[in-house]
């Protein structure tokens, strides 16, 4: 193992964290410099993520880049134990890509730019931390670090929705989000303490994920205990993953958040929840997981259908994408709940695929909103004529969303279907129907927003009539285009040749107990 490998993960967490710290020392009245610095940090993080992913040895499998720093030895046995397996590796890569994209398109943040990037980088460091640790305590610590900045990011830099009869302020969105996620955290924390207590009772008190997983494997946690505690993790982590009926924070949160935060939030943060269910729930409480999986897959199916049907009758672009995220995360939950090699692999791939796709969509909606100040699909029309490249990329994102072969979404959803077909046939059929409903709301969105001719004047939702608005519309700038273009390339690359991701995912999916 080279020197780089032993410090790679620590660097990965420290770079954005130190970046956030250093940025606080910078002068606050030079927004451009803050953005440049954030770009610099983002680029290093992305480079590190790519390097780590590429260096992950998919033939060896297991945890790699291992390094353990003792923190609280003794009966508590807490240590900053770093290491990633094939499930975490693609998600690290995802975080790197989405963070970089988010920073690039945030060049238009002018209000308290420095603070914005401080929080954004802290959030990213938290996400890296969750994926990179092998210790329950630090997993929770980084989880909170990732979730809490969200409140300020939405509350301060967000935007409110006002459709006359339907009002959602950004403060409401931020408050709702944070209450939900903190409530979830409490459940998780109780679960963690319960697991620790049980392990102590068995004479092996530790917070080490590997140690606890080994105890579970040896049957040291009895079945009743597991069945009682697993729902804490399922619901706690599940609410971050948008598990129905604990999903309502997510559309409101996505809509209120500024573009880069929506991207990170829907793209990466929701995946923390799904990852937590696998890493903590299933690895530590395999028997409990097995007992609860029928419930999880049923809820996942509800997610798929409910999210899709709800998206059908939304009129705000961002709400459509928000509900579509609820629907797509349903496939992730279903895949996990199959406890099937293919289904689980599909779930992990779907996390990656959905992360890129939804970040792309939010980036494009941001570009559209910046120029038109409208997100209502009943008002927007004919953008293709004015914002050709933006529209083109959005169509590709939409086709990925509805599961068009040749795009990453198809491979992932297809694998989830396949896994579910072996295990829960009727629900799998419902999930396939859900994919057809997705086509309905995506095509409705595309037809209303992008096709047709732009109207000469329009009345925005606040009653103001703008004449000739379409003449002044410009296409996305070079930065937005290059971010979106890069995301599209990733989507198509994975759709055509998923092997580089799949071989990494596969090698670790088989280590999940019950699979």
């Amino acid at each position: 193992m080279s020197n780089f490998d032993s410090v790679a993960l620590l660097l990965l967490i420290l770079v954005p964290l130190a970046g956030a710290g250093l940025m606080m020392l910078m002068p606050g009245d030079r927004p451009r410099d803050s953005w440049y610095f954030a770009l610099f940090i983002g680029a290093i993080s992305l480079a590190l993520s790519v390097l780590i992913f590429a260096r992950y040895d998919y033939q060896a499998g297991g945890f790699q880049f291992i390094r353990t720093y003792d923190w609280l030895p003794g009966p508590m046995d807490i240590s900053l134990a770093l290491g990633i397996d094939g499930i975490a590796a693609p998600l690290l890569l995802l975080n790197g890509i989405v963070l970089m994209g988010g920073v690039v398109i945030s060049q238009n943040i002018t209000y308290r730019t420095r603070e914005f990037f401080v929080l954004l980088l802290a959030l990213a460091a938290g996400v890296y931390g969750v994926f990179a640790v092998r210790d329950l305590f630090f997993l929770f610590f980084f989880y909170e670090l990732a979730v809490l900045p969200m409140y300020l990011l939405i509350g301060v830099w967000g935007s409110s929705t006002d459709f006359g009869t339907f009002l959602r302020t950004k403060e409401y969105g931020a408050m709702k989000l944070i209450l939900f996620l903190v409530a979830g955290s409490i459940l998780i924390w109780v679960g963690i303490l319960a697991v620790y207590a049980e392990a102590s009772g068995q004479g092996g008190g530790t917070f080490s994920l590997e140690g606890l997983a080994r105890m579970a494997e040896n049957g040291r946690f009895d079945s009743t205990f597991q069945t009682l505690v697993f729902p804490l993790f399922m619901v706690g982590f599940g609410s971050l993953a948008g598990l129905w009926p604990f999903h309502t924070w997510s559309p409101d949160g996505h809509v209120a958040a500024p573009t880069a935060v929506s991207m990170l939030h829907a793209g990466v943060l929701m995946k923390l929840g799904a990852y937590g269910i696998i890493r903590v729930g299933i690895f530590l409480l395999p028997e409990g997981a097995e007992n609860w999986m029928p419930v999880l897959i049923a809820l996942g199916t509800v997610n798929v259908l409910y999210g899709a049907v709800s998206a059908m009758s939304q009129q705000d672009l961002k709400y459509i994408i928000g509900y579509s995220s609820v629907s797509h995360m349903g496939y992730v939950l279903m895949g996990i709940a199959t406890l099937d090699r293919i289904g689980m692999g599909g779930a992990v791939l779907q996390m990656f695929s959905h992360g890129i796709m939804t970040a792309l969509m939010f980036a494009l909606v941001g570009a559209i909103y910046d120029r038109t100040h409208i997100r209502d699909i009943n008002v927007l029309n004919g953008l293709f004529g004015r914002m050709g490249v933006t529209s083109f990329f959005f169509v590709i994102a939409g086709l990925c969303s509805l599961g068009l072969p040749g795009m990453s979404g198809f491979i992932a959803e297809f694998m989830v279907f396949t896994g579910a077909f072996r295990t829960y046939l009727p629900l799998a059929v419902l999930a396939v129907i859900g994919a057809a409903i997705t086509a309905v709301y995506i095509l409705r969105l595309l037809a209303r927003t992008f096709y047709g001719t732009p109207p000469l004047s329009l009345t925005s939702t606040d009653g103001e009539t703008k004449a000739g608005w379409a003449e002044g519309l410009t296409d996305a700038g070079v930065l937005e285009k290059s971010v979106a273009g890069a995301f599209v390339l990733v989507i198509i690359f994975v759709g055509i040749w998923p092997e580089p991701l799949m071989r990494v995912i596969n090698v670790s999916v088989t280590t999940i107990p019950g699979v």
Partner: protein
Amino acid sequence: MQWAWLIPVFSFAVAPVIVLAGGRLTALSRVPGGAVLSIAAIGAGFAFFWIALLGWMDASAGTESCYVAAGTEALTCNYERTWFNAGLPGLDGSVALTWGFFVDPLTIAMLGLVTFVALMVQIYSLGYMHGDPRINWYFAVHALFAASMLTIILADSFLLLYVAWELVGVCSYLLIGFWHERPAAREAAKKAFIVTRIGDVGLLVGILLLWREVGTFSMTDAFAAVQAGTMGEGVTIAAALLLFLGAMGKSAQIPFHVWLPDAMEGPTPVSALIHAATMVVAGVFLVARAFPLFEAYNATPLLVVAIVGLVTALVTSTIALVATDIKRILAYSTVSHLGLMMLSLGAFGYTAAIFHLLAHGFAKALLFLGAGSVIHSTEEQEISRLGGLRKVMPLTTLVFAIGAMSLGGIPILAGFWSKDEILQAVSQGRNPAFIVFALITALLSALYMGRALFATFFGKLPQELEHTHESPPVMTVPLALLAILAVGFGFISFNWPGAFGGFGYFVFFHEGHGFEFTWWIGILSGVMAVGAFVFTWMVYERGSISLESARRRFAPLLRVVENKYYFDEIYQWTIDRVVLVFAGFVAFFDRAIVNDIGINGPADTVRRLGVALRLHVTGHLYSYALAMTLGVVALGIFWWLITA
């Protein structure tokens, strides 16, 4: 022959190049750069079709990768590659997703049709789409479409077939909506995609069901499992019917037929290629490809296929008879003929169905391109405002007449032979009711073809169309080439002396059979076709027969047919009143119940509780004194009660 996989790859490769660099190429070369690339790619595909055909003819059961397939008993060559592993390689073979291809008679026949028609249509498009600002995009999607369609034909696994199937769907969506500024085009594109997608749910479920039973997506393995009897009756029938659902969507069978006529909103060459000659026959092709599944266990699914095909053929041919838009007449005629092909498959007429598929493909491409030539020159598609065009567009008239007569079943033209094969198969394979209705469909088909021909090109030329010109050679040359096939293609079904025993010894299921001709069917259908053309000639050219009295007499019936049996209205009602209301209810439920009551409710309760509890912190000394006094008294009473 092992290079047959390149046929779609050429077109796949040029599509992104056109999107990225088409504009620059055009600037360099004056002709649309995208068109050149796209035509070169499909031209190469057409050349490789011949290579594949000759290679197959040279091959024998001993050739590497070739064998006599258990299902069709035809010489089949199969080449396979691994695409990616959805699980660990070696651990579980069932999750290796492969892509591979067949070269067998069915594939070769379809390759010939698709590469040739696509080539003709793309050359024709050079003229038809001349000057369109998005011409490069047009050719890019065209290339992608051709590539996907060719992949469907070559695919040896259901998964690869599904992938290509969906790509074909999306290309069709993009091409129908090519002029997306027109609301009708936009709606038609959406409708086409969603309606076929509903059928595709069935297809995907069917494919996954087969995978669950067989363990791989390979077609060969699935057919082998059926023949070995390892796959149970229920599953086989269910899978076949589910696949058929997908086929119904793509091939626009009732009740999924509604998208095809609307798809005429796309540019006319697109209609020729996609909605006549190639994409819509994908469903027929799928049934033929999966024939071993349909045929197993007493062929129960084939009865469904036959009934759906017959109903579709009959119902839509009546609509074609009263439609007034020339492209819609052709569209309904396409649906009707697809129904006939399905009926033929359902009546065990495997060879006849494929034969008609090819003959219809050439004739219908010809008709659409001919109609396109008319629309290009006159910018009119209502037949009531057209007429007499033979005086100004002689060449178009000639080729359109050939196409119409071929499809209408005028003897010795290609359509006559292929339709006859179908009628013969139906008379042998199904009970007499089927042949009666099939003959009625054949008659209707000749009638609406005659009507389209005579109403457009004969009769009186309207004054405003007097200055119409014939289309440029780039459009008429492909028409002439297609016309040759529409005339002569039928002859390949004969028992020619020498090596080639006729089409029946090339594409067949189980065993080849020579050319047969049932005299009474042949004469009857020939007489009906000629009669129908003469009748429509008298109505529209001579004006010696008036339909007015018949029209008045059957006015209510006519209204039902003219409104296309109200299928669209029923669907629209269902969408508006059921689907959207339900979606609205779910969204309302999410907002009002889950959010306002479930989430805001507890939040508000906490807030109100806070407000209420806050009241006791008044800051007034006397209220605290009162509270203290009351507390002491209460404690006193409590003390007294428990001691007493």
